[in-house]
């Protein structure tokens, strides 16, 4: 069964790669301890012989069934994917960026200057940019982009940063050498432009003094927070932000759609990676039967037959 993975994050791995890549996990069978990102890398390696496809940095918005036929999925970037079976392994929901409360910010989204994640740094070469935030993400991107952009302003609400000390030092050096403009104790106040972002107004949070910075791009980096998002619109049975499933095979109320991992719910559900693995196994066998009705299925063990590459 050929698989194609779509995720809103720019990398695979969900919470493990996004929230806690360097944290050790102690409850994966066979691994007394394994770092979260290492587990993800191993899983990617294990899936390689089956040549899965990946569409990353895009969110599935629409999910429709063509009569009795295939499902058609559409992403926020207009990518269309057709599939016989859809498996939702969305974890706690789609990681959506936390947006600052700045009036009119939405009018500059979707290619007009405001972005909440950086997918292709080259896009910013020679441009004027404002990055807002104080976490590791804001520091790391400032360090990386300082050499690419024409002008970079980093604005942070506090007096100091509490990120990785190396990163904090590098940012302070960049500010001292004049390579970036560092604006502390300040917030984003407003944005303006004619159809496209042209400037960002910053406000000092004690003196209330404002300062307008010319900008082609504004990247607010205030972390990500999971939301069920478009999944709520797909006519699935949902209970407390989780998808109800049949524990025979983790299918949902819509034939051909399954839900596995933290995104599903059933009596005695445990939100463990281990449970996700088990649910995936049962789901896969059911999906095969669904796609090949009437075909007699024989299970083969990898210890006997090895792994046959696609």
């Amino acid at each position, binding site marked *: 069964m050929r698989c194609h993975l779509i995720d809103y994050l720019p990398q695979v791995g969900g919470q493990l790669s996004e929230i*806690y890549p360097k944290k050790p996990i102690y409850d994966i069978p066979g691994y007394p301890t394994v770092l979260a990102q290492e587990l993800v890398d191993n899983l990617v390696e294990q899936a390689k012989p089956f040549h899965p496809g990946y569409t990353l940095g895009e969110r599935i918005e629409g999910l429709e069934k063509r009569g009795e036929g295939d499902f058609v999925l559409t992403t926020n970037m207009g990518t269309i994917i057709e599939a016989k079976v859809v498996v939702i392994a969305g974890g706690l929901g789609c990681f959506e960026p936390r947006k600052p409360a700045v009036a009119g910010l939405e009018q500059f989204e979707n290619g007009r200057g405001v972005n909440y994640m950086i997918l292709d740094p080259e896009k910013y070469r020679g441009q004027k940019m404002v990055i807002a935030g104080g*976490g590791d993400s804001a520091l790391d991107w400032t360090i990386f982009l300082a050499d690419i952009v024409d002008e970079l302003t980093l604005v942070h609400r506090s007096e100091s940063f509490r990120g990785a000390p190396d990163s904090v030092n590098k940012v302070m050096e960049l500010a001292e050498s004049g390579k970036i403009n560092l604006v502390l104790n300040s917030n984003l106040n407003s944005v303006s432009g004619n159809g496209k972002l042209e400037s960002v107004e910053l406000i000092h949070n004690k003196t209330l003094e404002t300062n307008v910075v010319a900008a082609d791009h504004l990247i*607010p980096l205030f*972390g990500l927070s999971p939301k069920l998002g478009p999944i709520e619109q797909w006519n699935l049975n949902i209970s407390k932000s989780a998808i109800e499933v049949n524990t025979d095979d983790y299918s949902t109320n819509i034939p051909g759609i399954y839900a596995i991992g933290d995104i599903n719910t059933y009596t005695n559900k445990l939100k463990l990676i281990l449970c996700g693995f088990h649910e995936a196994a049962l789901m896969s066998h059911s999906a095969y039967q669904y796609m090949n009705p009437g075909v007699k299925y024989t299970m083969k063990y990898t210890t006997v037959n090895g792994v046959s590459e696609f």
Partner: protein
Amino acid sequence: MGLSLMEYLKACEYDILATCGGMALCATCCVDVLEGEDKLNEMTDDEYAMLDTLPDVLPNSRLACQLQLNPAMDGLVVKLHHAE
């Protein structure tokens, strides 16, 4: 090993996400302390750094996963930061 405020709120089925499971890595368990702020353990750098990433953090915001429940907290009143 005692309970954190986050674990207790989750066990009581309050609408609190706690995506990272309690490692001060996601800020989804943020609470605003309405009474009893002085009864709480001091904020660590990790907690401060995570709270700092929230665009609408308040001076009395804390991460519930970093508050270990103990009798000295009697009388604490908090509001879920992300509650609508």
